[in-house]
């Protein structure tokens, strides 16, 4: 019984990690919070759903949804963050929270218009509903898909960031914006890249969540954005490996506390944990800056 809960928690945690990675990637580089991230996540789920509805299989719909969400994320960067880059950081911090909330609302209202405020569902059988039994645990195809996508995305992102020249440029901008510029890195290209990556990760998470709960609606991003804060702070704001671990821990925590606590108390426990971590270790439990490779090789 408890092993089953752990498995469910890990699957959910993988999705949290995808969402949190995109958010933390932008924070690590720009030092700003992208409050429109939840809306980008929603748009990914929408695009994925529409692709499945026009008859594409899920393995084709997923990359299209990620690509679309990536473009929408670039749109957020252009309208909400680019105009504020001239400000001092302390001013930009606050102003960018508000303007990204605004950008998120614009995307939300498009979502509301497209969905006519209805909850939409994936057609039956989008993912085969068979389950396999491993060591007494029931694993559905959907869970395998979610876990597989999460692992693949994280591996790809880690490879891109830590093993390619483009990734090195991104980390250079995160470390020192001016020095990177002096060395010939084009910061605008880096900003577009990171927003695209972040949006694509959010889009993948959106499709997975849409499939897992079989409910796609325009407000689905908000609770995820709130929960993602827990995952991100747990692992250290701006840290890529931290977001991964934080997401998994959060998923486990939610699944286990959901099994043993009254449902109404789960959120209180999770947010209390967030508060306590901020008090004890504000840099997160696994603080590590994005400029360092986890394996110390550049």
């Amino acid at each position, binding site marked *: 019984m408890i092993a089953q809960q752990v498995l469910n928690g890990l699957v959910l945690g993988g999705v949290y990690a995808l969402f949190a990675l995109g958010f933390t990637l932008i924070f690590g580089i720009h030092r700003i919070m992208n409050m429109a991230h939840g809306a980008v996540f929603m748009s990914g789920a929408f695009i994925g759903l529409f692709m499945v509805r026009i008859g594409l299989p899920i393995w084709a719909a997923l990359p299209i949804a990620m690509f679309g969400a990536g473009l929408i994320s670039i749109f957020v960067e252009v309208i909400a963050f680019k105009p504020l880059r*001239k400000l001092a950081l302390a*001013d930009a911090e606050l102003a960018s929270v508000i303007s990204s909330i605004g*950008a998120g609302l614009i995307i939300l209202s498009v979502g509301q218009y497209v969905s006519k405020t209805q909850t939409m569902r994936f057609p039956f059988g989008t993912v085969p509903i068979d389950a396999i039994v491993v060591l007494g645990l029931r694993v559905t195809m959907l869970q395998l898909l979610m876990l597989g996508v999460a692992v693949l995305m994280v591996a790809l992102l880690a490879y891109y960031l830590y093993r390619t020249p483009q990734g090195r440029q991104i980390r250079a901008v995160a470390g020192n914006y001016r020095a990177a510029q002096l060395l010939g890195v084009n910061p605008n290209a880096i900003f577009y890249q990171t927003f695209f990556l972040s949006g694509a990760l959010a889009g993948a998470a959106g499709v997975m969540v849409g499939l897992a709960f079989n409910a796609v609606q325009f407000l689905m991003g908000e609770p995820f954005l709130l929960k993602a804060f827990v995952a991100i702070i747990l692992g250290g704001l701006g840290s890529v490996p931290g977001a991964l671990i934080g997401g998994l821990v959060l998923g486990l925590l939610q699944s286990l506390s959901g099994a043993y606590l009254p449902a109404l108390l789960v959120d209180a426990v999770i947010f209390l944990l967030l508060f306590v971590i*901020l008090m004890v270790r504000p840099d997160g439990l696994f603080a590590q800056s994005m400029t360092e490779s986890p394996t110390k090789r550049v």
Partner: protein
Amino acid sequence: MMSFITPHLPLLDLIFIGTGYALSQAIVFRAGTFSVATSGFAALGAYAAAILTVKHGLHPAVAVGLGTLLGLLCGLLLSAPLARLRGVYQAIASLAFVEILVALILFFEELTGGPLGFHNIPRVVTPWILFFAMLATMALLTLLGQGGIGRAFDAMRQDPPVAASLGVNPARYHVLSFALSGAIAGLFGGLDALRNFSLTAEQFGFSILIGTLSAVVLGGRRAVLGPLVGTTILVLLPEIFRPLADYRQAVYGLLLVVVMAFLPFGVYDTIVMKLHNRRLARAGMLAPKVPKAMT
């Protein structure tokens, strides 16, 4: 005149209460803290006032007073942990505080009504009471803001080490700003509760927090009039754009994006700053341009 105002009275209520919340939010910003705890304090004040009036039969004025006190105490308590953090970390910690409170309100059903809400609250607060509460708060904040306290707040926001070196005790003013913020939010929360027959926990959740935050940043976070300007814009906007009611969210979002891009210090503050600079320029004291960083 009255025939024009009467149908719009609920809007005035919303503006007065919203401005109260926004003032509570603005005071912590002014002291250089990125806390968004206002809606939590407001929830405490509102539920305290409602429970004390309905279940314990207290006079509404006393109940609101106790709600204000509860907000103040909670502000004092929260100021200590938040002083250890900075910037977005403060924002996230205070957001966690609000979410914990909302979850607890939902959980303690016998006391708060839980997910069904708290009902049958006597409606005793009139628009005039709200108006005078708002005026009094604005007057108090103006008085405080013009004296040494206001200067200490400004110094702390702009450069904490310099402020400390000039003899400003950051811890003391930090606590003061939170006590004020908590008391103001508690007061308007209590008034809000006794104006509306019923309360729900969602009323104080993420969306009201975002609304208050937007009102302050939109209007301007330095001057006392900024929150009033911001709240008025946000309350009246849906009325003005009533033909576009379906696109209200989009219009609201567009407004936030556009104002931040072109008036990043808020409508009121940016205008005041431009006028100020023009006056200086005319006196030959400054090149006519807006300073880039007015923290």
